[in-house]
């Protein structure tokens, strides 16, 4: 008796009891489909979160911010210079692990006005051209200001699409895309020429939806026109933020606006009367995430020397966020797996139960098979294979079911992160169901194989 025969017999046995077999498989089907669907959902959330993480510069980014001088150095407060361009130069020359160094001076409470409208961008920042790499910006129209613009403190700026939307009108409102290159906008009383505009940043999900909305007619939104709020996706703020920014050459900010300074002592939005050479933020990017710790140490060493040992700065990385994503994903997976695992286990018990019932209904058959020469092994394999066949068919049905489940889930909540079915999840769920089938078949197969042929033949 070879395996093929056993498999054929297994399928016939299933076919002979279709309804019973489907009921038996139900546990496995539900277990596999919930396992795959759960992992697809978590994967979707994970991808969304990682997308946002990358949008703000990823794990390689270290932000250096000013902080109050620590208590034990309080007496040195008046010597604390804060984070300045000096630090930038020092890092560029002495901290090779810091691949990119991008100084920033923020204009707090900036108001953009032009075209008869005013708008408060999320950030209005003076930066070096290197900021474009730092923030993974893509200039779709025009150009980024360069070192010369910065050196000459030219009155130029590069804007995000939301600034354009608010001042000049969004493509949705106007019907065509306005590219406001060469237009002059007024920021806090200073005139700046727009020389570039970033691409519209959005996550995969929003992009798909927007494209879908383009194809379909805009549903009639009733009532007075209003802002419908910030979307429902939890991560798209990272993209919103990038869209709502205005970048200005650092020197322009410094010379024209006399801005910069920290949010620290002055507080957020404090109007700065006097010129302040301090940077709001200093962003550093490391070439390799693996070198993050070494880079932090190196940067700290350099800064400690430029700051004469006064620790009026601190580091901020995205590790916490990345870890949060990982922890969330792990927890969600774990709890989902436990539930799906229990369901699979119940399915396995169902199979074992049915197999036990099935062999006690087939004792005579087993006796006959033994009488014509079926050995212990052949009977064992036959029962085991039957159980595995049920589990495998159930597992395959479960995979199909998971596809349907995921489809219906994403149609129920189209704004959430699209669930992503992974091959790994499918393989694990399927493998698990096969294992369950084997385990569930062991005891019945053992019982059947051990039957005494005479006793089995006499069985009524």
């Amino acid at each position, binding site marked *: *008796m*070879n395996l093929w*025969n056993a498999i054929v017999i297994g399928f*016939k046995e299933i076919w*002979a009891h279709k309804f019973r077999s489907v009921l038996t498989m139900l546990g496995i089907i539900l277990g596999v489909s919930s396992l795959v669907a759960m992992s697809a959902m978590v994967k979707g959330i994970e991808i969304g979160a990682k997308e946002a993480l990358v949008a703000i510069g990823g794990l390689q980014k270290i932000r250096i911010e000013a902080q109050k001088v620590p208590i034990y150095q309080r007496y040195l407060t008046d010597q604390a210079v804060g984070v300045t361009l000096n630090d930038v130069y020092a890092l560029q020359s002495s901290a090779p692990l810091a691949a990119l160094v991008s100084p920033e001076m923020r204009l707090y409470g900036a108001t953009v006005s032009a075209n008869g409208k005013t708008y408060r961008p999320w950030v209005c920042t003076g930066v070096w051209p290197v900021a474009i790499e730092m923030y993974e910006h893509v200039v779709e129209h025009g150009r980024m200001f360069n070192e010369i613009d910065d050196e000459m403190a030219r009155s130029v700026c590069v804007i995000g699409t939301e600034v354009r939307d608010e001042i000049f009108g969004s493509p949705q409102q106007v019907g065509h895309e306005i590219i406001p290159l060469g237009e002059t906008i007024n920021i806090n009383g200073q005139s700046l020429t727009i020389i570039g505009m970033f691409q519209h940043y959005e996550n995969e999900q929003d992009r798909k939806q927007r494209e879908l909305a383009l194809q379909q007619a805009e549903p009639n939104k009733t009532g007075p026109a209003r802002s419908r709020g910030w979307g429902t996706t939890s991560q798209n703020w990272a993209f919103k933020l990038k869209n709502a920014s205005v970048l200005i050459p650092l020197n322009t900010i410094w010379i024209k606006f006399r801005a910069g300074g920290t949010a620290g002592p002055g507080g957020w939005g404090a109007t700065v009367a006097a010129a302040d050479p301090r940077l709001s933020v200093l962003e550093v990017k490391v070439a390799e995430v693996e070198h993050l710790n070494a880079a932090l140490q190196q940067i700290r060493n350099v800064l400690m020397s430029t700051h004469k040992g006064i620790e009026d700065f601190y580091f901020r990385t995205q590790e916490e966020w990345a870890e949060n994503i990982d922890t969330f994903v792990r927890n969600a997976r774990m709890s989902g797996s436990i539930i799906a695992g229990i369901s699979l286990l119940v399915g396995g018990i169902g199979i074992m139960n049915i197999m036990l019932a099935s062999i006690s209904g087939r004792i*005579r*058959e087993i*006796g*006959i*098979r*033994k*009488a*014509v*020469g*079926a*050995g*212990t*092994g*052949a009977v064992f394999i036959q029962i085991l294979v039957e159980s595995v066949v049920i589990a495998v068919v159930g597992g395959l049905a479960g995979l199909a079911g998971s596809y349907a489940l995921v489809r219906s889930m994403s149609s129920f909540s189209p704004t959430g992160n699209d669930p992503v079915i992974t091959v790994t999840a499918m393989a694990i769920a399927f493998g698990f169901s096969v294992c369950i089938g084997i385990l569930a078949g062991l005891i019945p197969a053992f019982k059947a194989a051990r039957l005494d*042929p*005479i006793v089995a*033949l006499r069985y009524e």
Partner: protein
Amino acid sequence: MSLVELRNVSKIYHLGGEEIRALDNVSLDIESGEFISIIGPSGSGKSTLMHILGCLDSPTSGTIKLDGTMIQGASPRELARIRNRKIGFVFQFFNLLPKLNVLQNVELPMVYSGVSARERHERAVAALKMVDLENRSKHRPSQLSGGQQQRVAIARALVNSPKIIFADEPTGNLDTNTGEAILQLFCKLSREGSTVILVTHDPEIAAVTPRRIEIRDGKIAEKVDARLAGLDRVARTF
């Protein structure tokens, strides 16, 4: 050397405190090509003897040699192999698998001896031809009459060309005419050279066979001399 050598075989069942000697110190030789009936009243131990001869059951004590191999102490696996290759069974209640069709039932022993699907089919068809049932191969056992079912069972017993065929009351569940036909089939098999052992409690059926072994209370009561039986058989053939 005899095909089967049974020496001092006993089979003892214990029920409650009681000891039942289903077989009591039986010794027996069966030569290749013999046509034998085992006869005796109900409960005398005929089936028990046949099961032990057919390697379905093992004796409590004593030795069995079948085709030169000692059987007692063989593993279940070896016993299954011997049953598969050297022994064919025909039972009183046919014992066909209801879910398989006639052809598949006949193929069953070959499934366990690793015969290829094509050869299985050919041999099963040939065996069915022998019992005149080749036109019913796609039917289920339940769609056949009792006699036809028994013929399928005989085809199944034959299909692996066994050394010896055991039939336990093969006509017990059939009417007289059908039973007669089945009996003729066994006679035909015997004439073609098979070793056939018929278990029965009917003296008329036993009268057909050259050699009769009578069992009473687990003991062999009397038997026709083997050499005489041989002569008898020769006489019958012509």
